[in-house]
């Protein structure tokens, strides 16, 4: 059994490296938050109160981002290996054992990633703390600490989120008849589950509760609850994604006529049909857009000019979650690049030129990013509208940060789709199409 777990981890290194990276990134971001809380506990007094407040907001941002990103990445990790799990069953592994092995693999990777992430955070916490609180002399004077007491809960959190996030996928791997898994490249769609309904409705209720408290809140304290609305709405959209994501992609991409570009046509079909891949990439990007736009929209609504938010504050509040979200999106593209390469090799065999193949890969990145902008942007727009209702002032402050994050994400995703494709183009088609 142990041999199976580890040999499979090695054989699918590309997929598991993506999962490991995200587990490590989540742990690094979590460890920075844990360090702030530990520092607050050690400091006591007013400094502690200030740090608790800030850490609480960062922790909520991190939690929402981690749940969406890690859930998406973990589910993709299992989905991409469905064929391998089917082969396990064909050689005699019981479905229950398949589920156990998959869960054990996720647990091993999450523990390893969690530990590595916390170790990476150790040299980072001090310079980050100094940078983030450079405008606050009282807090800048504190010495940040990160001890095992702070790191262990972070590792456990990562392990639980990754393992639970993949539990459903592991169950699907065990339940799906092996022949069906062997025939389907990946499950054709994502269906709504009870957990998705419950998660989505519960998050929507939290948003409603926050909104209901706003009318009685002063402008000086309204920014924090208001800035939570956008990422929470992103969470709602991620939960209900299976209901509309493929249709949304098909709808807006149809603005480019199918006869206009073969590359666009291929990318459009691939993105809309491969719901698992697309959801895993679009959801983290959507959170990134919602986080950045939501922070500025909330502050704009209560009259804080965008320019007055120090870079240190923005990095402190959004740096970790944004990094995690963007890394999550890039990791999902990297993890599924083998599938993309096979599809594009078929297009090469059918007479598609290198330029067409590269353009199709780039078009896929564009479709992911624009879809994320539409969804994340709608969360920012709703935050703006709620802010206008509660604070009485309309603001467009969320637009520029949302677009900036989108542009950055586009550059990274273009690199993540086009570079592996360019490398794959150097290989002979038969090598790329060879059985896995």
């Amino acid at each position, binding site marked *: 059994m142990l041999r199976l777990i580890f040999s499979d981890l090695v054989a699918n290194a590309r997929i598991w490296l993506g999962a490991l990276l995200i587990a490590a990134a989540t742990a690094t971001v979590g460890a920075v938050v844990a360090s702030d809380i530990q520092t607050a506990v050690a400091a006591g007094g007013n400094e502690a109160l200030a740090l608790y407040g800030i850490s609480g907001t960062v922790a909520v941002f991190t939690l929402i981002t981690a749940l969406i990103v890690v859930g998406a990445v973990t589910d993709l990790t299992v989905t991409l290996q469905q064929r391998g799990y089917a082969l396990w069953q064909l050689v005699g592994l019981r479905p229950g054992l398949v589920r156990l092995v998959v869960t054990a693999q996720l647990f091993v990777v999450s523990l390893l990633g969690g530990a590595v992430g916390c170790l990476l955070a150790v040299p980072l916490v001090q310079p980050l703390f100094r940078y983030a609180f450079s405008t606050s002399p009282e807090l800048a004077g504190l010495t940040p600490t990160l001890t095992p007491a702070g790191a262990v809960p972070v590792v456990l959190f990562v392990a639980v989120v990754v393992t639970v996030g993949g539990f459903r996928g592991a169950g699907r791997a065990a339940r799906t008849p092996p022949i069906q898994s062997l025939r389907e490249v990946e499950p054709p769609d994502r269906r709504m589950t009870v957990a998705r309904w419950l998660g989505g409705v519960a998050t929507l209720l939290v948003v409603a509760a926050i909104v209901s408290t706003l009318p009685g809140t002063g402008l000086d304290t309204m920014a924090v609850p208001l800035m939570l609305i956008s990422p929470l709405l992103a969470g709602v959209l991620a939960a209900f994604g299976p209901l509309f994501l493929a249709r949304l992609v098909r709808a807006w991409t149809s603005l480019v006529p199918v006869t206009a570009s073969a590359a666009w046509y291929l990318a459009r079909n691939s993105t809309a049909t491969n719901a698992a891949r697309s959801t895993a990439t679009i959801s983290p990007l959507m959170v990134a857009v919602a986080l950045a736009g939501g922070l500025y929209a909330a502050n704009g609504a209560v009259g804080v000019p965008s320019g007055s938010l120090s870079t240190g504050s923005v990095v402190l509040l959004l740096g970790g979650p944004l990094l995690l979200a963007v890394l999550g999106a890039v990791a999902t593209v990297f993890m599924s690049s083998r599938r993309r390469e096979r599809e594009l090799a078929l297009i090469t065999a059918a007479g598609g030129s*290198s330029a067409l193949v590269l353009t199709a890969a780039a078009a896929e990145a564009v479709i992911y990013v624009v879809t994320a902008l539409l969804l994340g942007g709608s969360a920012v727009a709703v935050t703006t509208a709620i802010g206008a209702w509660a604070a009485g002032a309309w603001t467009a402050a969320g637009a520029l940060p949302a677009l900036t994050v989108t542009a950055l994400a586009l550059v990274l995703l273009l690199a993540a789709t086009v570079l592996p494709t360019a490398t794959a183009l150097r290989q002979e088609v038969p090598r790329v*199409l060879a059985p896995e």
Partner: protein
Amino acid sequence: MDAVVEVENLTKSFPISKNEATSVLRGISLRVPPGQFLAIVGPSGSGKSTLLYCMSALEAATTGRVRILGQDTGALGRGALAKLRRDQVGFVFQSYNLIPSLTARENVALPARLARRRISGADVDRALADVGLADRGSYRPAALSGGQQQRVAIARVLAVRPDVVFADEPTGALDTEAGAQVLDLLAGVARAGEGRSVVMVTHDLEAAARADRVLVLRDGVIHRELLDPRADDVFAAVAGAS
């Protein structure tokens, strides 16, 4: 033109370490005339799939020359090779022939779309009807059986009407009945009297016996050549090569 494909003294080696290479094809020469159904057989590791990929310009030869319709594939740039594949060559692989995100109808129309050629819905439907899948046009590959997927791949070839079709173990993953259907369709391409040739690699010796000409490969060289063979002749030739 007296040959659709011409191969001259073709060699292919693969590196196995920094200083070592293993030779898979060793000086093969052959010609495929228009309208011929050619089968390539041989023991595992004899180099038959590598020969097919080099003949179809999916893989570069180490030395030697391959000409498709008179064009030296080694001298063509990537763009010209893509155009050659688009316009004159069709492929049927053992599996994973179709783009999973496209329906059967869209897969059949794909080469025309890549070439920015107009292909009517009626042409696509006719190609699907020719392979007995008129009612499966809206299905995605995952919803089709292995044999049906192979037939869609052949429908794609029929719709493009290439000068030469390369098929790598097209019946390898199919049951006897589905395999026979696929072979009938491939033979039909070559025998339609339109000068189109089919080059097929197979380990199924009865399937090979359906071809006009059979090449038996051993250790990267042509060991025997049979014309209009019976299945027994192919069995005997391969047994002699093993």
